[in-house]
């Protein structure tokens, strides 16, 4: 077996191992910098966004199809408007290999999102966060540390929400307080990663 072939096999195994052991970032963990290009060609860079935002960056793993995401379309723009005005940057990221860039673009236009929806080809950004489902939210502080990770609220149906976990966390961050509930869980659609 040639040395080149052995190195290739080792690298392939190493890459597979990294993918298998991609751990979800939780409160206190730092997220590596990344750049991602929007469907309109605009480029977005995490470090740039953090330096320009007064409070931090909200990253929402999103889907054009997941029935646990769609009910939030009736209020996600209001949330974004409220917290962008308080100094946060809001990004949605679509990492599903089964949802095309065109579908992401159409879905964003249809819902008149006021935040960019970034197509994450080969789920590189999802792997950086260890994101596994939609919707799944990470709020990063100015030093790229995760301040909140989890759900938007305890119920996708607006009228049935009893706890507003994301809003609570953002209000505390905006007020300069420590987030009291830093991590929450909920059922969601698994992110369909590239094979």
């Amino acid at each position, binding site marked *: 077996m040639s040395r080149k072939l052995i190195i290739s096999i080792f690298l392939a195994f190493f890459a597979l191992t990294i993918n298998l052991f991609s751990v979800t970032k939780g409160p206190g963990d730092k997220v590596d910098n990344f750049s991602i290009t929007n469907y309109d060609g605009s480029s977005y860079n995490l470090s740039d966004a953090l330096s320009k935002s007064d409070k931090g960056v909200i990253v929402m793993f999103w889907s054009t199809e997941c029935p646990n995401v769609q009910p939030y379309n009736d209020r996600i723009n209001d949330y974004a408007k409220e917290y962008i005005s308080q100094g946060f940057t809001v990004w949605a990221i679509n990492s599903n290999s089964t949802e095309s860039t065109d579908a992401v673009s159409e879905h964003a236009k249809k819902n008149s999102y006021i935040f960019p929806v970034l197509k994450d080809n080969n789920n590189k950004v999802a792997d950086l966060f260890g994101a*596994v489902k939609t919707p799944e939210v990470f709020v990063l502080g100015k030093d790229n540390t995760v301040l909140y990770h989890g759900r938007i609220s305890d119920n996708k149906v607006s009228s049935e929400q009893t706890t507003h976990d994301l809003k609570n966390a953002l209000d505390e961050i905006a007020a300069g307080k420590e987030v009291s509930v830093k991590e929450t869980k909920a*059922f969601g*659609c*698994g992110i369909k990663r590239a094979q």
Partner: protein
Amino acid sequence: MFASLHSQEVRQFKSIDEFKLIMDSTKGKVTLVNFWATWCPPCVKEFPELVKLYNNYKDKDFRLLFVSLDDNTEVESKLIPFLKKQGVDFLSYHADLKKPEDLIDFIDKSWQGEIPYTKIYDKEGKLLTTFLGSKNYEQFEAEIKKTID
């Protein structure tokens, strides 16, 4: 013990204690627990594979627990019609919990709640394997065959 029993043999559990009793009742059989919902396309995709697995192994100390995470309001309108269409003629379950995250933490604290999600336990209740995401018949059967001849 159970909140209700629907005509299509769907039992709802309202607490983790009720779910523990269900899990305890599986001891003595190799048990596959599949968390799913009718709103989850990959869950729907793998569902017939699991029904086929059940039919091929039901006489060999094998038990399949479908645990639906559908909304309570969709049990009659979506869940039961789906089970009928899939030919499920055995008891399955629906989680009707006030705090679904309790179920996530009870099953596995590292689970983030993404579905489909499958656990396979041996006859003593020891965890054999966890499947994240949609799988096919061959993948499920390969695990079952390790403990059932």
